[in-house]
């Protein structure tokens, strides 16, 4: 299961979606990051504990995506970016 790091708060400013890391988390990830519309939906789904295939379905529902687009790869890449930035827990974090 993919888990978001506790202490990461999603907020909106002037219509823009932003992730903000509370104090203790700032050593693991950037203090702030702006998400685009796709990123916001992916983050919401991850926060609700949804799995990758559920996120892919959700994106297909929300957006008019061309049939030849590899949504699965897009989600996988986005999750990788979030993990690389430290916004998602790795297995080693879970065992600490």
């Amino acid at each position, binding site marked *: 299961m993919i888990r978001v790091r506790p202490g990461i708060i999603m907020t909106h*400013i*002037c219509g823009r979606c932003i992730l*903000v890391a*509370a*104090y203790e988390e700032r050593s693991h990830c950037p203090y702030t990051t702006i998400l685009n519309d796709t990123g916001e939906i992916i983050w919401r789904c991850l926060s609700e504990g949804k799995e990758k295939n559920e996120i892919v379905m959700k994106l297909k529902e929300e957006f008019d995506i061309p049939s030849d687009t590899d949504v699965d790869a897009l989600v996988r890449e986005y999750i990788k970016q979030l993990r690389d930035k430290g916004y998602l827990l790795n297995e080693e974090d879970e065992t600490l």
Partner: protein
Amino acid sequence: MKRIFEFIYAGIAVRYRFRNNSTARYFGRCIHLSESEDDDIFMNDAWFDRFRKVHPDDVPDDYVEYKGLLYLTAAYLLSYGCTIFHSVSFVWKEKAWLLAGKSGVGKTTQYLNWKKLFPKEIRMISGDMPILDFRKGRIMVCPSPWNGKENFKGASPCELGGIVFLKQGKENVFHEADQCESILTLFHQFCPIPENKEEIRILALMVERIEKEVPLWTFVNDGTQESLKVLRSAILDYLETEEP
């Protein structure tokens, strides 16, 4: 028994119980002993250790406490609708202007340039950490005891006119700030280190009010007196177009 000291920020009395009574000296003449036995802010061992670690050993404990209290005070003021914003702030044409940016980007240099070229037209509010007061229909800029290494301090509160994000460069280019960039920069210039959802929510509201209520610019500059003329002229142009 530890004495309680009181300092007034934008009309809000904040009571400190210092770890070292000598810490009070960094707050200048405006701090005074309180009759109260209760404090609002006390830096516990864990917080002190965090700040002690980032200062060299020869920096005295009372100075470390004073520097660390900046963050505790900024967080405390959030619940009152105020906080502390890292910038050089001064009054010009009856409005407060903030020069913001990372340390070393040239905020003080531009202020000194202005003071040198047009000595009588600006007054310093805070050289490093003014208070922003969001409680009324406008955003007010007020002095604080954290005034940077030059210890520039002075003028009374004034309504915020605009914010200039400074960046170092080889040319002098002044333009409206990109919204995404300015949102992130504003967050980073606020001093509180938010510890929970509520503090982040309040900071986000403050960022949004700034975005909506005052002009935000980016000024890439070479730090010369010529660059100051570009900066001053650009704000002047804005003021002339804004006037009814």
